[in-house]
């Protein structure tokens, strides 16, 4: 169960007080009339499902009722930051990529089986080396 820092209440609260509302930073097209069916369909139905850094919108539904954003690692479930509506994340997949090159720890996991898939075998060797 997550322990979430509400950027409006300025304190950590239990996940039970919040609702997830899906991917953050979805832009409703400015001019729907001149948006193609495909573009509108993308906006309505298509969502990212990244392995790693993800920006999500949550609402403090039984708290302050405010919507805000979370940057979360979908592999480790670590919440890297929370920030109010209208702000941009300071941690992104790109910025984490930079950290990787600098030798920061790689989040592992995802596949449930070590070694059952070739890419995991590589991961394993990486982890044990």
């Amino acid at each position: 169960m997550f322990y979430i820092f509400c950027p409006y209440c300025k304190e950590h609260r239990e996940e039970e007080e919040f609702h997830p509302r899906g991917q953050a930073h979805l832009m409703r097209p400015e001019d729907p009339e001149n948006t193609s069916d495909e573009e509108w369909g993308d906006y309505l139905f298509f969502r990212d499902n990244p392995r790693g850094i993800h920006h999500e919108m949550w609402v403090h539904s039984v708290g302050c009722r405010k919507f805000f954003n979370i940057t979360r690692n979908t592999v480790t479930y670590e919440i890297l930051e929370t920030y109010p509506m209208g702000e941009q994340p300071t941690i992104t997949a790109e910025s984490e990529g930079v950290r990787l090159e600098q030798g920061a720890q790689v989040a592992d996991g995802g596949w449930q089986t070590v070694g059952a898939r070739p890419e995991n075998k590589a991961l394993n060797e990486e982890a044990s080396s």
Partner: protein
Amino acid sequence: MTQSNRISTGGRIDRSHGLEFNFNGQSYQGYAGDTLASALLANGVDIVNRSFKYSRARGIVAAGAEEPNALVQLGARKDTQVPNVRSTQQALYDGLVARSTNGWPNVQRDVMSWVGKLGGNFMPPGFYYKTFMSPASMWMTYEKYIRMGAGLGRAPTESDPDIYDHMHHHCDVLVIGAGPAGLAAALSAARGGARVILCDEQEEMGGSLLDSRETLDGTSPVAWIEKTISELASMATVTLLPRTTANGYHDHNFVTLHERRTEHLADTASDAGFPGQARARLHRVRATRVVLASGTHERPVVYANNDLPGNMVAGAVSTYIRRYAVVPGNSLVLTTSNDHAYRAALDWQEAGRKVVAIVDARANPDGDLVRQARDSGIRVITGSAVIEAKGTQRVSGARVSAVDLDHFVVTGRIEDLECDTIASSGGYSPVVHLSSHTGTRPKWHEDMLGFLPGDVKDMISTGGVAGHYALGETLADGARAGRQAAIDSGFENAEELKLPDIKERRDGPSCALYQAPHEKQGLRAPKQFVDMQNDVTASAIELATREGFESIEHVKRYTALGFGTDQGKLGNINGMAIAARCLGRSIPEVGTTVFRPNYTPITFGAIVGRHCDEFFDPKRYTALHQWHVENGAEFEDVGLWKRPWYFPRNANGKKENMHDAVARECLAVREGVGILDASTLGKIDIQGPDAREFLGRVYTNKWAKLEPGRVRYGLMCKDDGMLMDDGTTSCLGDNHFLMTTTTGGAAAVLEWLELWHQTEWPELQVYFNSVTDHWATMTVTGPDARKLMSEVTDIDLDREKFKFMDWKEGNVAGIPARVFRISFTGELAYEINVQANYAMHVWKTLFEHGEKYNLTPYGTETMHVLRAEKGLIIVGQDTDGSVTPEDLGMHWAIGYDKPFHWIGKRALSRPDTMRGDRKQLVGLKPKDASIVLEEGAQIVLDPNESIPMTMMGHVTSSYYSPSLKGSFALAVLKNGRERMGETVYLPMSDGKTHEAEVVSTIFIDPKGERQNV
């Protein structure tokens, strides 16, 4: 029965405190301090259960949470039954009653064992699926009998007499496990100033120290345990939780601890002398740092017939002797791969019983314990292993042979040794389960021959689980971990702990021994069990790999390795090692499966805590609820609300049925006047200079010109164009509106409004507040409504001054009220809103005046019939998230030419929403007016089409109408509006096919004159 295996001295039992207990219908004696398992062993009970699949006789193997066999059904009464309790973890109490979970008619003579014996070789993994594959339709029949033969625990059939509760904690350091490492860690962290919780699953804290042969500061480790615990107990910042299992390790250092508070004393808390207190408690702990000191489980060696009663893991033998003063046999053979296990033989010999031999797989063992064993005159056979246990109901001998583990073959002459107990040790597996709950995979350490916890954020593993097996190392590592955890959680001045003196022992290196070879190969050898709880054998794993299951996750699912309440505690590593050998890979290449919560089973009571009944499923009542109860209402659940469903009358001592009550209520509204408690409708107060603009964006229709005093019906779509809610919104002032929502949609609509305001249009000045509970709503409706209202209100009810879709402020029954002329019945209607506290007075006043008009209370069922007769939809009943306003024929409520691009508009011009063959809302009139169609019934055009028929739509609402004197329905039907007058068919599951005519959705008063009178 005498306690034939009890030693007269030693152990941590209280011989002055005898206890009686009953196992499988037979009475036995034990002592305070015993577990059920130790007491059974003391009494010489060999067979404690039958195995799950083959019904083989099984005995006690281990002494703790890792016990796979000795599961019992606990409880003396029907209402106190607890299934699948490990007898190794159940403290003995006076009057304890337990039964084996499996075995019929009893464990000594089990019918199913004959099936197991006869069919054993023919029951490979997948046996049931392979054998009972066809015909598929017979599987349900087979399954019934297969399940009768199998057996796990039985759920209690009566309600639990005990209560349970939850506690929430925040601490700096949570230490899991109170063995040497955990105690040192807790003391170290606590002295540093951290708030510490120390939990341990056993009856006593101390872990491996409680049966250790070693000394601390030159004396028994028990003295150090007592000193440490008493210091911890004296500190206000420390919480000690014995008998508490950390059963789940969740995200962000959230750990659930299952504390058993009275289960070691009696069946129930009351019986234990604590009436009204919680029997068990779930602690929900959010820890800054977790110190995992969960220790190790010893791995048994896999050899033939290793499941016979009398086969045990070596450490358990020591535990029973040293802690419980029970020697579980007379003559012992020990088979081992390491030095540490030698203590079992030494303890056995010191207890005065015979050690036949120690069989060591290593060629040249030479540690201190090995030397000590040899000095005590124990025969040590090197380079060898026990390859098979002999015996039927219990071990009667061991077959021993020299083995070549590299080539996995038996190399020497096989020697038969007579014995009644075989202890085995294939090394130690760190108890990584909890760390694995977090999704972190354990890592194989070849030097330790085991998996160690992976890196878990904010967790430190220490002691045995971190691969430190020597006592001195374990204590030092624990102290280090505790200090580090304190520093990490902000107590930077935590100091190093002074540790007790330990006489260092020299242990020689271990060798890798998971499975002993047998002179017969594979399936031809007697069964070698890997996972005893799930009856998984080495040959089953071999077969699985031959059949192409290469991933250990697939092997697991095919064979059931590591399933159930056991979660692979004893068997998993051996299973992986066997799979690895068969596949010609290393263990880390084969991988490990993921352990999941819970570590050991937890009762539903502890999970639920106080969240029972209304604390689990709260009920909401309107201000008028008491009146409804007193007037005999039947209630319906709508969301959390209890709403009157209908009001049956008693006539001639007989209670009206629903059909008659609803018919009477309907006619009262159509011909006289009725009243409905509509308080549950969601109400949202919307204020701000941009409130009107906001409404225009979230509703499909226009709001720009709605004047104060007027009301409008609105449709709310999602941006995909599908209807999500509907309701009326009234203009209270230029900057002030009152929105109503469906009863069930109130909270979701409020959040929806907030979502769009906060994320898309924060520049709009508008505020939302739920006022659902503030106002009670009473709908007075019917031709006589005006007459009744005129008697109780000062509002001018003149039809020209107070028109349909107007609202007025005034007094009703002397109470300030808002009255809305809106109608969900199609009749003249006034919706009276008053502050909820005054509702009962107003309601009763209406009835005082209404008596002469036969004012009739009606419920939701009548409301449904009346609205359906008018073709008025209910969102969620006539719609399902795939229905647009156009599908409903509500073109009139869509403002395509509104200036702003309101929610849902763009989607209404997508190709899918413009399709010609979309399902549209229509009315259906059954040809046989006495038949009320089933809601959900499918509509077809050709009743003679063969199955699968072309389904054209389905019935959404269907009732009997007393006004029409016949049945009618609403339905969604492809191209429905073009099919007016056509006949459609509704084939039912009973073989009958109903006929109906497609008609308008409005069955009564199509011009809408009645509501305008």
